[in-house]
């Protein structure tokens, strides 16, 4: 936890005031003792198991058989779909694109997020309204965002090129250039999510102790020195949280690409998530699609574990 817990030393309620009975040792005793929390948690837990665990298991099954449209019993093929995956050049391409997009977006979103976060932490009149306004991209539906940017990015008729032309710059073809499409999509994502990063970071800044800053000012540190040696190290845990949250979404990059390019041109924007969709639905190969999806799920979980571990390290 990054904030001080106000619920006391360990914050936990004693399950019962003081029942000095021996039955707390047995299973039924424990069940009785924790009756209420179990009742409170189980509906949500059961719901999650039914809605989430079943699809994951079913996809695991699909990934082990050879599925064809209309087939009644799909023959078991073992790990053939996974072997195919590791031999498929497009899979590696998609993995590379996923990681590239992940790194580029995360890098810029973190930098811009920190900048915005610090800007937002200045208490000036209108700060609240400004903060809410720039959050708009993060909470608007991705469908609307995608449609809006298709129009903006149009190479001949769009506003983006109009601005480039007005400033005397070279006009670009944005989504239609294999070398440009990832950058174009990254720009949208950075536009969409940097303010969100900023919000988390501002929240963290408010909770920082003031003493180190006062000490630094007394020592005559410059603004840059304060930022580098005081602000940034203190903020690191919060920044890690922001990175964790974004990472989980970035590795599964789907919406914007599905709406805008469907993975093109020349497969240059085919992320793993898009590729699994293409395989599963467009190419009607659910088995292979499922194998890729499960790989992606494993990848996301791995990343969250790594980043959580890094965060824990940053806190301690």
């Amino acid at each position, binding site marked *: 936890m*990054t904030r001080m817990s*106000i*619920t006391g030393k*360990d914050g*936990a*309620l004693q399950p019962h*005031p003081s029942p000095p009975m021996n039955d707390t040792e047995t299973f039924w005793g424990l069940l009785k003792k924790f009756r*209420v*929390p*179990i009742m*409170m*948690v189980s509906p*949500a*837990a059961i*719901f999650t198991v039914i*809605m*989430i665990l079943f*699809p*994951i298991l*079913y*996809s695991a099954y*699909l990934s082990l058989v050879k599925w064809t449209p209309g087939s009644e019993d799909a023959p078991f093929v073992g790990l053939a779909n996974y072997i195919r995956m590791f031999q498929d050049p497009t899979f590696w391409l998609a993995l590379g694109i996923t990681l590239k997009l992940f790194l580029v977006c995360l890098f810029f979103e973190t930098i811009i997020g920190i900048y*915005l976060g610090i*800007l937002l932490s*200045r208490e*000036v009149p*209108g700060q*609240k309204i*400004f*903060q*809410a*306004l720039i*959050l*708009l*991209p993060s*909470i*608007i*539906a*991705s469908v609307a965002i995608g*449609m*809006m940017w298709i*129009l903006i990015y149009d190479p001949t008729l769009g506003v983006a090129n109009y601005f480039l032309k007005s400033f005397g710059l070279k006009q670009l073809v944005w989504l239609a250039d294999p070398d440009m499409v990832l950058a174009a999509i990254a720009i949208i994502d950075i*536009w969409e999510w940097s303010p*969100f990063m900023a*919000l*988390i970071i501002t*929240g963290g800044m408010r909770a920082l102790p003031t003493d180190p800053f006062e000490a630094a000012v007394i020592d005559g540190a410059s603004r840059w020195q304060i930022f580098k040696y005081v602000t940034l190290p203190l903020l690191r845990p919060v920044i890690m*949280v922001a990175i*964790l*949250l974004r990472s*989980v979404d970035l590795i*599964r990059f*789907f919406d914007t690409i599905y709406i805008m390019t469907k993975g093109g041109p020349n497969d240059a924007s085919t992320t793993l998530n898009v590729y*699994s*969709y293409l395989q599963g639905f467009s190419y009607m190969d659910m088995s292979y699609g*499922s194998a890729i*999806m499960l790989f*992606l*799920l494993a990848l*996301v979980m791995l990343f969250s574990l790594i980043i959580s571990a890094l965060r824990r390290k940053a806190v301690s």
Partner: protein
Amino acid sequence: MRKKDYILTYLQYFILILLFIGPVLWMILSSLKSNLDITAYPPILFFQPTFNNYTELFKIYPFAKYIINSFIIAGGSTLLGLILGVPAAYAIARYRLHSIAFFTLISRMAPGVLFLIPWYLIASKLEITGNNFLDYIMLILTHAVITLPLIIWLMISYFEEIPIDLEESALIDGCGRWRIFFQIALPLSLPGIAVSVILSFIFSWNYFLFALTLANNSTMPLTVIAFNFIGEGATNWGGLMAAATIISLPALLLTLFAQRLLIKGLTAGAVKG
């Protein structure tokens, strides 16, 4: 702060507003243009505004119905998320069951496409998909997969902020857990519930992938219909921009009228995550 600092801050505000709000404003402006003006080059900033795109939406499509569907699905999944999530969050916060909270997060990690086929399979086996009432329930259930973890994580942070002393004294008075939950914890966490409702409503409203394949004609929400404006011989940019604006309406309203709740909610959920 010095005067120079103020000026610098506001200068940055101005530029950033242009950058972050500009595209959204462009969308809203476009929705008020005729099709001809939308794709005009060079882009037109001043034009005769028209509400034709909006009126046509309601004339050509049962657009009011799509809006209602979006409300039913987003509202229903928010309600379900609250019913399941708030007690769970309370138990997690009070009995330190964070591993369970992590478990609900798996839905955030899995690619959405993964759920489509299995869910549809269940739905069709149970003969849900042909029946409107059951189809709404199905959509509400699937969207609750998005709202539930959000609500749980938001509410955990709110419950942890409630001083435990109050509850302990109630416990000593002999009140049961449930009564403490309903009469002490819940009223104190009302601001948190307000935030949860707003955020999970928005996130559920925005989500399109599940409804894309699971909704039928009478249960289709707004986000799905937005794809329908581009079709061979039937592309309608004006309608598309108007629909996109209507889809963004909850977000726009929230930004204008509930800033504090929004910021509080996003911060709380995030920092505690």
